[in-house]
């Protein structure tokens, strides 16, 4: 490495233009993107889905699909013109200079080969003998903190958890000591606690190897934690670039400002008012945009924005913004619309919903899987119960057993004090109408061949017995209720955006005038700007109809915004149940504490409770307290032998832990990490 005055950047994109050729026409996806990543730097590329993040990554990798064309500009990695590479040069580039980690580690590993074969291959390609390669592969696994590398080497990818798979992929990517490592949403599919661990690992390795990293993510929290400089991509254009502080604290582009405001901020509750949203949507790829790419959605836009494309304005030392009005970007108007009063929850009344000892055991390959091990809860009219926990904690099983989609092994569900048959086919249509669901993925929840009008009409007919003009009128009202224009009724789901589809799904759930709606991660498939609008809608509907929600989410910020009470699930058991305030403020159950501290944060003072390992198998839950194998506050033998009862620790708050509440309060007051 020469220590010249102008060091060669590890990655340089110069006015990169990329188009996809679809149905005979070139459609622009990336527009004049220029950026540079220096050696040893971690650069974050952030943006919503469809803005061109992955396309940029694929162009750097030279893995663009056959219809992807670089129409202008250039890509250099460590001084080499990547776009000019041919044949053997390209092989050498992939082998020695460049590595990439994809979002889904399950598909990045070959399912038919053992980890050892896949990992040693990387070293053998670079000339190591088989025995040398094995030694180096074991070292590589130790470096990514895999505790038992010899046994992991012998396994097939599907025998590893998602977090372990991603570690193996990272080990492979770093094995060649690349000049540039591109990470495309490397932790998006992982649980928060595992994500936190993998992110720590990436930063540590990046510092040790002094690798240049391009970190692509839609999550500003993750980017803030990992990167020093950040570029914000919108409609294929880098609209703002700066240091993490510039972007997160002093954003100077209306899009970035809007994006930051959409996220339910620390501690914001539905009672505090609506979330800000970004109106409109991303222009479809290939749209001709003569002016600013954000003009259609920008509240600050003026004539000039429509006619002229803004060049990057230098607004700080390392801070640029492609906005003519960057000086007043922070004054972007807020959403101040009033909303009807939220329902007052009457705690003394007979609960709307009473769930007793709901349990579900699946049988799989001769093993019993205890997906849900006896959960009881009550819910008042107009109340929202948040359900949080890692994947495999039983959240979705709980929702489906409650609705009767699956028949629980034991336990009962009562609405207004009347017990419902446990199977859906035994319930009357008014029972069925009283509880509905909004699914996670609106693409799969709406039949893509049916028009919206048909989707709603069918629900109205089956749930309320409405037909003809009455049903039609009700469908119009429902579409109004979810703030969609009437002509959406004539559309098929494929013609609607993700947010619009989710609105249709919400309209369908509300078509039977339900008392309770289960929301199963309703915003996790959506971008943050759309998420905010959907959350606002759900709260508005609750205010109008006094509907109760069971709101399942892994995003604690979202749960905190929406939920009145929160239930924390782990391995199908209730760890803690209390008001949102109680659960989020210390003292917490040790598992809740770990979940809360796993939330990625740009704040360097944010110390973290580390959870070791993965969630144990529900087929073979640990003895005693199910959390004892990972608990950072474990007391000792009592946790291994005796399952702590779910006890009332005061004011109706339930907790399942051997450590008394006062003791938890004391130990959680001291910074984590100092306690054992």
């Amino acid at each position, binding site marked *: 490495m020469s220590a010249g005055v102008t060091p060669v950047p590890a990655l340089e994109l110069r006015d990169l233009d990329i188009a996809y050729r679809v*149905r005979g026409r070139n459609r622009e996806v990336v527009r004049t993107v220029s950026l540079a990543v220096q050696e040893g730097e971690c650069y974050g590329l952030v943006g919503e889905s469809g803005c061109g993040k992955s396309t940029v990554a694929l162009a750097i990798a030279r893995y663009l699909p056959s219809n992807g064309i670089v129409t202008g500009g250039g890509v250099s990695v460590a001084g080499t013109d990547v776009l000019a590479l041919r044949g053997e040069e390209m092989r050498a580039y992939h082998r020695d200079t460049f590595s990439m980690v994809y979002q889904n580690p399950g598909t990045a590993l070959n399912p038919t080969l053992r980890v050892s074969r896949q990992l040693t291959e990387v070293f053998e390609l670079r000339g190591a003998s088989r025995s040398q390669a094995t030694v180096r592969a074991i070292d590589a696994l130790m470096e990514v903190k895999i505790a038992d590398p010899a046994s992991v080497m012998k396994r097939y990818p599907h025998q590893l958890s998602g977090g372990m798979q991603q570690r193996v992929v990272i080990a492979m990517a770093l094995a060649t000591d690349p000049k540039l490592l591109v990470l495309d949403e490397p932790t998006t599919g992982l649980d928060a606690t595992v994500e936190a661990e993998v992110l720590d690992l990436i930063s540590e390795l990046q510092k040790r190897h002094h690798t240049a990293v391009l970190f692509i993510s839609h999550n500003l929290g993750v980017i803030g934690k990992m990167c020093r400089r950040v570029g914000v991509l919108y409609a294929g254009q880098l609209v703002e670039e700066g240091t993490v502080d510039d972007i997160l604290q002093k954003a100077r582009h209306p899009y970035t400002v809007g994006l930051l405001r959409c996220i339910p901020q620390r501690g914001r509750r539905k009672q505090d008012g609506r979330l800000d949203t970004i109106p409109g949507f991303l222009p479809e790829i290939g749209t001709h945009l003569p002016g600013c790419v954000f003009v259609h959605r920008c509240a600050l836009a003026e004539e000039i924005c429509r006619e002229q494309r803004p060049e990057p304005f230098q607004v700080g030392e390392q801070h640029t913004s492609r906005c003519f009005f960057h000086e007043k970007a922070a004054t972007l108007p807020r959403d101040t619309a009033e909303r009807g009063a939220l329902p007052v929850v009457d705690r003394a009344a007979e609960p709307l919903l009473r769930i007793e000892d709901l349990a579900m055991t699946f049988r799989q390959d001769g093993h019993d899987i205890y997906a849900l091990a006896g959960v009881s809860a009550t819910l008042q009219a107009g109340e929202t119960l948040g359900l949080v926990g890692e994947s495999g904690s039983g959240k979705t099983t709980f929702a489906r057993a409650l609705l009767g989609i699956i028949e629980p092994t034991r336990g009962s569900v009562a609405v207004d004090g009347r017990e419902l048959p446990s199977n859906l086919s035994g319930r009357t249509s008014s029972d069925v109408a009283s509880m509905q669901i909004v699914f996670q993925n609106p693409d799969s929840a709406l039949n893509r*061949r049916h028009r919206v009008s048909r989707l709603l009409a069918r629900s109205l007919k089956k749930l309320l017995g409405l037909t003809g003009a009455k049903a039609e009128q009700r469908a119009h009202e429902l579409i109004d209720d979810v703030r969609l224009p009437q002509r959406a009724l004539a559309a098929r789901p494929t013609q609607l955006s993700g947010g619009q589809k989710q609105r249709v799904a919400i309209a369908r759930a509300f078509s039977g005038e339900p008392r309770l709606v289960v929301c199963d991660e309703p915003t996790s498939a959506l971008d943050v700007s759309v998420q905010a609008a959907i959350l606002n809608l759900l709260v508005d509907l609750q205010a109008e109809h006094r509907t109760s929600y069971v709101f399942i989410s892994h995003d604690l910020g979202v749960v905190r915004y929406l939920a009145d009470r929160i239930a924390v699930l782990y391995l199908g058991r209730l760890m803690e149940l209390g008001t949102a305030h109680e659960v989020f403020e210390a003292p917490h159950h040790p598992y809740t504490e770990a979940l809360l501290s796993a939330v990625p944060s740009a704040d360097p003072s944010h110390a973290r409770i580390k959870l070791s390992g993965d969630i144990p198998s529900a087929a073979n839950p640990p003895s005693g307290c199910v959390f004892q194998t990972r608990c950072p506050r474990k007391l000792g033998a009592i946790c291994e032998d005796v399952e702590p009862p779910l006890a009332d620790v005061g004011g109706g708050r339930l907790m399942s832990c051997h450590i008394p509440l006062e003791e938890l309060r004391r130990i959680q007051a001291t910074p984590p990490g100092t306690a054992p």
Partner: protein
Amino acid sequence: MSVDASGLAIVPAPDAPRPETSLDSRSRVRRETIKQLVKSPTFLIGVAVVLFWILCAFFSDAIVPHDPINDSLGAGTSAAPSSSYWFGLDEQGRDVFSRVIAGSANILKVAPLATAIGIGLGTLLGLVMGYFRGWTDNVIGRIIDAVLAIPLIVFAILILTALSGQSEGITVTPLRLAIVIGLAFTPPVARTVRAAALAERDLDYVQAAKLRGELAPYIMLAEILPNVVPTIIVEATVRLGYAIFTAATLAFLSYGVQPPTPDWGLNIAEQYQNVSFAWWESIFPALAIASLVVAVNLIADAVQQVLEG
């Protein structure tokens, strides 16, 4: 400047250019799909050849230069192709060209009908297997395996015998032939549709349908079926090619129309012993079969490429 507070309105700010994510995008996509199909040379060649044979089948009386059945031309024996008889004469002095043109009628009746029967039954079975899974799937699946294990010719004799009256022996009509081929095609179609239905049944819209009390037939026919239509269309075009081939094969094996009716498969069967000295008698019907099968497969390929990306 007007900004809609909902954050997701379809209508953009009135003074802003209309974003392309709008309600007409679907018809635009369909237009572009058809445009692409029309631009594809394989598709066009396939359609041209198929249309040619359909015209032949319908208007053979007007097209043929000679009566394909009764005319005994030349010396009344076989003659090589010449300027007056393009494809030559067969051993009874009939014009081979006329017989090839007229021979398309039978196959173009049987093959589409057989495809329709196979697709219809196969789709129903496939939906039932894919939707119910478990025992239903296992039982039907094993029966299908058993049917697939029977050689086509044995299967054809079995079905034709069952369809024929007791006194008449085995008689073949175009309808019966179509039923035989349709039944023979049901198992592979059922398997394809089953796979598509299996993927659909796990999607949440099926759960949502159950959550409003829909019954299984509605879910299969109104919810799942429309979503497996592209798979069925591709399967149908592929099956049509096979049906032509199979009909010709059965005719060759004398399970088709009876002489003297002109039919490609039958013509080949009658003449193939003479191929060493009178090649034109069997080569031209064979080329006709090949052209139609290849044309249908060209269409199938183009449709598959457009529908399945």
